[in-house]
């Protein structure tokens, strides 16, 4: 197999964003007729690499060779023209249009007059659908199709560009067993037609079934590649997570107190099922899982943003009914959401107004908001979190991401919670702010706050947590504590494998 010609060679690829080095001297080689699994933890640089290959990002440095020729992708169309097509994690297409239009949007067959050649559009689409053995017709409206069928439309779309390099980013995430088999049949067919495929998946079972080769990234850097038949799952996991993770995070000595939160069999119809756990004073409970495992949805339900259908929540031994966020706040629960810009801050407001918003009633003894009270609270929490700003009235959209995150945490601390839920608290912030946030989380636990830390960053969750609950597809897989915690075991559990 190794004597197949290489279609695509990436070398020295680097890309930085403010505060983050997403890719550093990465490399990747694809050969025709081969499936290459691209491996790496969340944040290892896989999506950045895909976005460079599809012309969405431009690399800071590095070379992309296709058939030995250097390529420069300034926009998505350049990348197609070079024969690259990507099938995205979440199908991004046009629900209201027909399958044929979805396949050929942007490059529809046209008559001499420049008008769309509908008969040709449909016959070409039908041909592509036949090639991948799809059972629906080209005039079907996309939104009537299921997720697996939408994937097939995306594959047909890739084929319509005569793509020779097809990137599949978590293509099986929403598919059932039988549908995965169908997808693998299609992949094998594409291989036999000489396509090279990049296959991104967190499920090792699939990787060993379909991939011929692997390439592994870690922290934006290339760490190895080779043939799948020469490697074991344990070796791959070690490469993905292999780093020392104990220096960065403050070790704490905290006495764990009494149980403050008991969740029993919390479930809803589509997002999580049978969630049961306890949380004690001073404890940090990490929640780890792949993106889309249902962690945030569970937390949103605990905070009353959505409703659970079954199960109970007890705070300090008393059953509480949480129907909306205001119930949760009165029960002493605070939730720092993942999407800070949308769910966490009021960008045009100043720091003071942001910090006191959820606890505004406490600053309005006689129904009139007391500015001095507000300022006192803002000073206290702003200073504790060392928010860097020119004044407490500075607008949030003028602050850095890290400082915004500090304001969001400060705002929830001002509600004086007993239970603090942090959802991806360090996502997208620079390393300096990250360390400050970590240190502060440790301090809060030391003061007896019970903390839930939802994080997709393995070192963070391992470094900070007393115990770690792993979720997979909405279900609780296992809770790891103390010596049971190892990166390998956690990654395995999160991939849904009990291997």
């Amino acid at each position, binding site marked *: 197999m190794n004597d197949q010609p290489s279609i695509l060679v990436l070398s020295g690829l680097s890309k930085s964003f403010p505060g983050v080095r997403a890719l550093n001297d990465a490399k990747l080689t694809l050969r025709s007729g081969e499936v290459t699994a691209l491996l790496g933890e969340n944040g290892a640089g896989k999506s950045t690499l895909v976005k460079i290959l599809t012309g969405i990002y431009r690399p800071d440095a590095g070379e992309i060779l296709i058939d030995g020729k250097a390529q420069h992708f300034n926009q*998505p169309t350049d990348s197609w023209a070079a024969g690259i097509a990507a099938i995205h994690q979440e199908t991004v297409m*046009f629900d209201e249009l027909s399958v044929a*239009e979805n396949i050929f*949007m942007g490059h529809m067959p*046209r008559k001499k007059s420049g008008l769309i050649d509908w008969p040709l559009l449909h016959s070409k689409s039908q041909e592509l659908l036949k090639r991948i053995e799809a059972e629906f017709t080209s005039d079907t409206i996309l939104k009537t199709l299921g997720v697996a069928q939408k994937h097939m439309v995306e594959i047909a779309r890739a084929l319509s560009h005569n793509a020779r390099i097809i990137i599949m980013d978590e293509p099986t995430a*929403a598919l059932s067993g039988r549908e995965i088999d169908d997808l693998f049949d299609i992949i094998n067919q594409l291989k036999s037609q000489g396509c090279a495929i990049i296959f991104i998946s967190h499920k090792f079972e699939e990787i060993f079934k379909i991939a011929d080769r692997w390439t592994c990234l870690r922290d934006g850097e290339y760490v190895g590649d080779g043939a799948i038949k020469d490697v074991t799952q344990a070796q791959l996991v070690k490469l993905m997570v292999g780093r020392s993770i104990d220096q960065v995070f403050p070790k704490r000595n905290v006495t764990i107190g009494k149980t403050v939160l008991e969740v029993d069999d919390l479930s809803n119809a*589509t997002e999580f099922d049978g969630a049961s756990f306890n949380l004690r004073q001073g404890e940090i409970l990490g929640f780890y899982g792949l993106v889309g495992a249902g962690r945030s949805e569970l937390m949103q339900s605990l905070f009353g943003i959505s409703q659970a259908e079954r199960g109970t929540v007890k705070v300090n031994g008393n059953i509480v009914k949480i129907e909306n966020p205001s119930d949760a706040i009165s029960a002493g629960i605070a939730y720092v959401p993942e999407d800070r810009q949308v769910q966490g801050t009021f960008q045009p407001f100043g720091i003071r107004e942001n910090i006191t918003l959820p606890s505004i009633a406490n600053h309005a003894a006689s129904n009139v908001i007391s500015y001095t009270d507000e300022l006192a609270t803002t000073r206290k929490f702003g200073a504790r979190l060392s928010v860097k700003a020119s004044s407490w009235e500075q607008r949030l959209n003028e602050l850095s991401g890290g400082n915004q995150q500090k304001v969001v945490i400060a705002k929830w601390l001002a509600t004086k919670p007993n239970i603090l839920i942090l959802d991806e608290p360090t996502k997208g912030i620079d390393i300096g702010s990250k360390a400050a946030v970590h240190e502060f989380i440790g301090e809060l636990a030391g003061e007896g706050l019970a903390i839930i830390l939802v994080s997709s960053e393995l070192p963070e969750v391992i470094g900070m947590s007393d115990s770690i609950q792993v979720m997979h597809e*909405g279900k609780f897989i296992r809770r790891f504590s103390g010596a049971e915690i190892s990166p390998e075991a956690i990654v395995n559990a999160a991939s849904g494998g009990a291997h």
Partner: protein
Amino acid sequence: MKALAKNREVLLGFIVAAIVLAVGIRAPVFLTGESLVNVITDTCFLFMLTLAQMAIILTRGIDLSLAANLALTGMAVALVSRAMPEVPLGLIILLAIVIGAALGSINGALVAYVGIPPIVVTLGTLAIFRGLIFLLAGGQWLTSKDMSEAFLSFPHANLLGVPSLIWIAGLVIAAFWILYRQTQFGRGLYAIGGNPVAARYCGINIPRQQFIVYTIAGAVSGLCGYLWVARYGIAFVDNAQGYELTIIAACVIGGVSIAGGIGTVSGALLGALFLGVIVNALPVINVSPFWQMLISGFVILAAVIVNARSERPIGKLILASARKLERKA
């Protein structure tokens, strides 16, 4: 879903027919050919402008300045006609289209290349255009005596027994049908409104398309500007005042989604026809204009409620069991 959309259009068609018949029973004069042609002729402006507005709404935009553009262009060509009565009609019409398109392209440039929200841009240009009419005419009203014979007679001319206004509207409708249905550009408008990110990944040049739709809408407004002034024989600051909202109402009633990406030519035309019939038929049986407004208002809300898509899943499908159910459904 396609069936439902079609059904809604059929339903709207029935409602329009029912109103026409009901009014006809009370006042048989309404059902004469002459009277019906008059209703259609009166609604021609709304047909053309609704289809122009639809192009913009499809891309998730909105244009509040269409009626102001119409009034400004109408005033401009009326002034030209007064100053130079010998200018041929063809040139006047061409001038109207060009002025309208130029005004529309200001909106387009600000939305597409400066990135200002359409509602803000067109709210601003609406006021500017109205203000310009006053400056241009020095606050004067131009009436039929200021305009040349050829200028005034064209909208009332007949070809094969059909008023020229209907012929022009027919051509504009046909052009829009081809645009929406038969061109990649037109399908791209649906893509932009349906999923802007995916549209960009498909290589659609979103700013360029936005710029073009505002310019096209402006051109149609300009054309209507001349026709309006010539038909009613008057050009003044408040010409077609408030008409921009009637245009948007016709889109909404016709099933064009304000959220973008959804809308058909037939639906938009029916929406316009509905409002045209309300305005022309109800006065025949002495229904006051306030009742007309009330009825239009209720129909707009009813149309939006019908359009509101209630089929979205309640949550994300994370559990394997939930995904299986979804597939069966």
